[in-house]
């Protein structure tokens, strides 16, 4: 099952605003969406793990937040708050990034009459994310061979050096890849001036309507109750 890229954009914006600004119960209602969507993408193990972690963190945060739990407890509650808010946002991003094809995204944006000058850099970003992970993994490997680990006595003594070791090679290789990528794209005729066509047909279907109605319903209930 496929969602229209515009629906995904809406889900990202609406979902994240609810999760960040509304009480946990509304956040939980939104979280159902990515959980179900991931199952439909056959990522049920990921979905299950995510739902489980979310349930624990959201419940403990909500249950404990008004109690007097002491210093350690406060630390725990704030951690749970961070997890229950940041994790679902990242998961929605992850879902959108991994299921949207670059050309789908560009077609969706052009249907919303967003100029190519805005769309093309955003499209490059979608392509860039997996590359960043790939490169970061290689660099992590290289560091492990040199005996530099993320958590060790040496790292604790000099955390800035580690940051430098990790980021300088990453930046150097990403700059190079970014340049090569834009050369490849421009020699294949990608340009802000020309109109693109797209082989993927995009359009709204039942599933899009369901996502839209569901998100709007959650927002409406939330605003009526407050």
């Amino acid at each position, binding site marked *: 099952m496929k969602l229209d890229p515009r629906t995904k954009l809406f889900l990202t914006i609406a979902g994240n605003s609810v999760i960040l600004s509304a009480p946990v119960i509304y956040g939980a209602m939104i979280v159902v969406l990515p959980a179900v969507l991931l199952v439909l993408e056959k990522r049920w193990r990921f979905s299950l793990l995510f739902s489980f972690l979310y349930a624990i963190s959201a419940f403990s945060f909500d249950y404990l937040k008004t109690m007097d739990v002491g210093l350690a407890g406060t630390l725990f509650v704030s951690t749970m708050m961070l997890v229950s808010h940041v994790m679902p946002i990242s998961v929605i991003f992850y879902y959108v990034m991994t299921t949207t*094809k*670059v*050309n789908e995204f560009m077609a969706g944006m052009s249907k919303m009459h967003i100029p190519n000058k805005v769309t093309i850099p955003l*499209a*490059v970003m*979608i*392509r860039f994310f*997996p*590359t960043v992970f*790939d*490169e970061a993994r*290689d*660099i992590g*490997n*290289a*560091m*492990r*061979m*040199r*005996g*530099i680990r993320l958590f060790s006595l040496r790292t604790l003594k000099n955390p800035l050096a580690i940051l*430098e*070791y*990790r980021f*300088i*090679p990453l930046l*150097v*290789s990403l700059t*190079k*890849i970014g340049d*090569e*990528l834009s*050369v*490849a*794209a*421009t*020699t*294949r*005729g*990608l*340009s802000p*001036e*020309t*109109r*693109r*066509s*797209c*082989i*993927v*047909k995009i359009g709204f279907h039942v599933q899009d309507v369901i996502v839209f109605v569901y998100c709007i319903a959650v927002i409406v209930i939330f605003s009526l109750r407050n």
Partner: protein
Amino acid sequence: MNITLKNVSFSYSDSLDDAVIKNLNFEIKSGECVVLVGESGCGKTTISKLINGLIPLYQSGTMASDVLLGDKNTADMTLAEISRYVGSVFQNPRSQFFNIDTDSEIAFGCENLGMDPEEIRERVDRVVKEFHIEHLAGRNIFHLSGGEKQKIACASVSATDPEIFVLDEPSANLDLKTVADLAGIIRFWKSRGKTVVIVEHRIHYLREIADRICYVKDGYIAYEWTPTELEAKGPEYAASLGLRCMNLEQLGETEDARLRGHDKKGVFASTLSSVIASEAKQSTTELIVFNDLHFAYNRKFPVLDIPVLSLPRNQITAIIGHNGAGKSTLAQVLCGLRGTWRQKRKARKYGAYLIMQDVNHQLFTESVLDEILLGMNPQDENAAFDILERLNLKDYASCHPMALSGGQKQRVAIGSGVSSGREIVVFDEPTSGLDYKQMLAVSATLQKLAATGKTLLVITHDPEFILNCCQSVIRMEHGKIAEQYLLQGNQEKLIDAMLNA
């Protein structure tokens, strides 16, 4: 469509005084297949960029005079317009696809031209059939091998049906079998009357396809041969110009003769090699043995399944095998980057050090000296300077590693491996994209390293390199060792295995 360069000069800086290309007159006729060769930095890639319009439209610099495609001047066109006539394929398979799935990528160029979706779908289907890549349709490009990515790049360019194809070192990261597929693709374009311009170090696969081979030196065409002419001049002539060999089968014979006749006197480090050779005779029995090298993503399909691996100590062993045979996995397990917790712990103690193909990933610090010191006791500066001295890097001790040339960076990475104190050093494709002289330099560095007590393991697709510096060969297949043999006396077997299998 003819390509005409009339008296063209180009410089990457503001003035034409230090021009890379000086007053170049060059014409390529419609339907011709022209190969540009020459040492690194001679300006051949610049010529290819002049043809596909990246110069002057993308690259900044100073240019004099014009490049004509047919009767159109590239300086008056946009890159999008040029892309209708010229399709480009580049060296690095990782960075030349824009989409995440293969189908969209093949359609990408057509979409940019605003073609009708129905028509695009027909073209994609046709190209997939023409290139025999049905098995790659609908896949995630991030999960493909380098060779497969390169085929998708060719298919994508081919779908827009341009008149001219410009390829910049397309084979640099490919194994010989995939190179043969690439040759098939180029032959197909040629049969369709397309003009093909290829910048390349490895030219053996173009022996029967190229019409002309142009030797570029200091920005002009110094020599021009047909492939037959160049082959007739013999491998020594090619080597003297810094060119890779023209005929791999010939390579086996001459190298064999060289080994028998002169007791392996290479162009470089001749005394060194004979020292190694005599040492090898004394200590043929000394082996480093690894047991139980296994790795699997899931239990049914082991990626790596080697009960016993024995490496001759202080020698250079080549690992060959096709993409996906488990070579890189073997390297990663040996270096403790993959495998069970126990394997990793063991590897950290006695394991190997990996010199990656992209050495940029393993240089972290602000100076070459720091890079060496990182793996050892920081008080031990003398030892660090010793290592730098041996790698001819002493003058660069205070330079930033990222400011060095590719070969120097590789030597810094090797230095960091030496300073880590690990006995085995594994190289992943150390010679991809190198010309003949650079390849010999790497080979000399490796021989030096072996002579100073390291045991070397080299993953490579480069037969010339293996013949130049390795003593034995391990061929891998489906995660297992298919065979292991001494190189001496088996040169033809090696080339056969790399070409056919």
